[in-house]
């Protein structure tokens, strides 16, 4: 009979994708708030895992005419001992007047759902933007690159595209019916032993073929194609991130942990923006060295504190390995703020003359004791120094943090879209 069975399993799924996007767009402010909150609660490593968020339902509900209260009549199944005329005490929770039954109306005041990793990251980083990106945008496309752009009929011999040329030649030969050498050889073989009449015929034919072969060359100049190249502005798709950290004895584990979280967040952000991100770890006491990540965070070190040594090391590395024209340079420095007094001037000069001109962004994070209050921290030597530089117009971002939970807001502050008045400032 006419029963139609269709296999729909291979049809593209996620028909609701667009509706979902609309929903997220509409709930953007709410979801973003929820994402921010949930990312503060988790470890930074998991920040980009996506997952469940909850948004308050009253922002997203769809109102309907609903009734509540009044006298209610209901018929229920499962009577055990009631008889007509019994009066049952009201359940204590329902306060008499229109006490809602479970399952009626909106019992939940939040609405939980799962965000995919991409959605989460998008929302997480959406309203962040690196400072002065606009200014640097032109610089980003400065370098030129060469890109293949099809074929042309002229060019240098080095750029002849053999395969394209040969295939065009073949097509032409086939189209013009150029005799194949085998056909010629066959006739010549036949010539060896055949009758006289046939011989004349064959000779004429061989002649004709030969002249045709001559007229139709194996490769004609019109077959030749050259590979064509175009120069295009190439965006600088790579960034290097310098992590500078004071590892002298005064830095506690807690402070290092704060710094680490900040670096991670910075890394995540750069990773999203650039195809290729390198990280250079420079730790310093009174002298600086480039180390791997493990040593950077956990290796033991002791000594005094000379911030200039780290800046000098960074400058040397930039000069030898990361040409500012090819790399976007980001630097984040974490320290408890100690610096030897005599070093201040050198540090200042290095920073303003060498580091800042080549960096897209330089952030200074002053980490404090756990349970301390950031606004109670006395201004440290380094803070005072940088503050002075910033007052003179150096593009520095600086913040103080004490608690893990403060990291994200700080990061957020640092990278927040600048208001127009701030941008011109």
């Amino acid at each position: 009979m006419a029963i139609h069975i269709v296999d729909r399993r291979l049809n593209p799924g996620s028909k609701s994708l667009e509706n979902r996007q609309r929903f997220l767009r509409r709930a953007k402010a709410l979801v973003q708030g929820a994402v921010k909150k949930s990312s503060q609660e988790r470890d930074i490593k998991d920040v980009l895992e996506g997952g469940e968020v909850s948004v308050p339902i009253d922002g997203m509900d769809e109102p309907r005419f609903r009734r509540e209260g009044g006298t209610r009549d209901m018929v229920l199944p499962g009577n055990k001992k009631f008889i007509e005329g019994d009066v049952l005490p009201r359940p204590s929770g329902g306060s008499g007047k229109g006490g809602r039954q479970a399952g009626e109306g909106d019992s939940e005041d939040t609405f939980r759902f799962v965000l995919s990793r991409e959605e989460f990251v998008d929302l997480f980083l959406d309203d962040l933007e690196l400072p002065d990106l606009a200014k640097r945008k032109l610089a980003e496309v400065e370098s030129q690159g060469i890109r293949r752009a099809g074929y042309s009929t002229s060019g240098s011999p080095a750029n002849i595209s053999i395969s394209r040329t040969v295939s065009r030649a073949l097509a032409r030969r086939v189209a013009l019916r150029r005799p194949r050498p085998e056909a010629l050889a066959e006739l010549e073989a036949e010539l060896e032993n055949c009758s006289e009449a046939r011989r004349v015929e064959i000779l004429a034919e061989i002649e004709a073929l030969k002249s045709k072969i001559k007229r139709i060359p194996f490769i004609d100049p019109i077959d030749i194609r050259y590979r064509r190249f175009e120069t295009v502005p190439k965006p600088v798709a790579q960034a290097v991130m310098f992590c500078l950290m004071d590892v002298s004895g005064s830095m506690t584990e807690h402070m290092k942990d704060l710094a680490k979280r900040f670096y991670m967040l910075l890394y995540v952000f750069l990773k999203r923006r650039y195809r290729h991100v390198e990280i250079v770890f420079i730790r310093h006491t009174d002298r600086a060295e480039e180390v791997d990540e493990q040593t950077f965070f956990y290796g033991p070190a002791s000594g005094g504190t000379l911030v200039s040594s780290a800046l000098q090391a960074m400058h040397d590395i930039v000069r030898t390995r990361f040409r500012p024209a090819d790399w976007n340079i980001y630097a984040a420095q974490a320290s408890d703020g100690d610096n030897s007094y005599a070093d201040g001037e050198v540090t200042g000069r290095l920073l303003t003359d060498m580091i800042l001109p080549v960096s897209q962004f330089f952030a200074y994070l002053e980490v404090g004791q756990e349970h301390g209050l950031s606004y109670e921290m006395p201004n440290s030597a380094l803070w005072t120094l940088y503050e002075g530089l910033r007052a003179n117009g150096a593009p520095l971002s600086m913040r103080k943090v004490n608690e893990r939970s403060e990291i994200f807001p700080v990061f957020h502050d640092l990278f927040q879209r600048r208001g127009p008045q701030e941008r011109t400032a």
Partner: protein
Amino acid sequence: MMSATDQLLFRGADWDFHTLQRICDACEQVAKDELKLDVYPNQIEVITAEQMLDAYSSVGMPLFYKHWSFGKHFAFQEASYRKGLMGLAYEIVINSSPCISYLMEENTATMQTLVIAHAAFGHNHFFKNNYLFKQWTDADGILDYLEFAKRYVAHCEERHGRLAVEHTLDAAHALMSHGIDRYPGKKSLDLRAEEKRAGRRRAHEEAAFNDLWRTVPTGPAKTSAILDVERRRQMLGLPQENLLYFLEKTAPRLRPWQREILRIVRHIAQYFYPQSQTKVMNEGTATYVHYRIMNRLHQQGRLTDGNFLEFLQSHTNVVFQPEFDDQRYSGFNPYALGFAMMQDIERIVTDPEAEDHEWFPDIAGKGDAMGVLRDVWANYRDESFISQFLSPRLMRQFRMFHLHDDPEDRSGILVDAIHNERGYRRLRRELARQYDVGYIDANIEVVDVDLAGDRRLMLRHTVVKGAQLSEADTKRVLQHLADLWSYDVSLVESDTSGTVLKEYVAHPRSLAAAA
């Protein structure tokens, strides 16, 4: 048991498309020859769990216009599905011709048989024969109409901007439950003609556009002041309980495309209207049909005993009715109540007792159970079905009782009737009333428009049994209503004696006019 093993439809749990075909044929044979069901042509589609979730979020329809609220439902359902709070339905069936049933690929062969019998024959027969569906839905046209609606909404978004369309749809959705005609009009719905009409009207508007019309002097305003109230109300078709219809026809400043969107939402609400009135009957019919078909297949030796036991287990879960004090209780299970009533009718017709002769003189002992049932399926809805056919025996079986909860009565909740001789009729009346749409939805009507004055739209909610509208929601719905009407809107809540209990006023935001 018959010996021929090749009679078996399948063995074990696995199935392929050939098996499905055999199952369909076997079910069809029983359904047509024995139960004499009259169904739309069937189309069976096998889908994945993800596609099932997709279908959930657009109210089960295979295609639907885009709106954020469907995305919200999807996100919500997906979250609860992933957490394991919610299982998915085994099938979804669509009231269309051909009747489309979606089957989940995870189902075992037994489940597929059950689901095909349930949806493709049970629901299908009900859709095709029940008077409400005949009156209010157009199974032939619905898929084309949905396709049209989807295209039209997308087209509007392109032309008038996504936000403007979204606002209009938000407002229309808020009023959806009051966009239904409850009484049949002159002609039945023809959705295909509907689509053509919309297209023609658009084409005409574009063809007839002439900028000169703007410059034609309009003359002094019509002296509407002299129209007396009665005449005005008659001209506007007042009182009108179909708010969406009223807005579509009379809202002064809506754009033509906004009217068309209201019309689309209204038609879709209307399409679902019979379903909300026949939950018990629809599920009862489908469950009864699958129970009959599965039993017959087993008798014919086309299902193994093992498969039949698997079926019985699912069936028992489906028709389980928790008692009121059970944690799982959330009202009457329409499958349980419907199935029990169908079986009870079969018993009354074939094997009545003295009590049944007294209560159901028309059908008791008549002998032809399927004939009576087919007649019931065609001519009743939940409310009338229960008030006609709920038997005392079933009330005893379910041990039903009636509670009357008057908040004014401090002493507590009164047990008004139980399953005894004195209570049967009251119980039945009260239960039927629980399914009466007249009681389920708030009774809100447009009563008047102040045409001479500030064009205020006046609504009235007739309060029944003291249940007033919840304030926060009402304010927001009225806001939507005012945006569409683009002048002030007032809503008065009054009880049946006319005493005013509460009054709301909403002022339009500028967006409807700007949109």
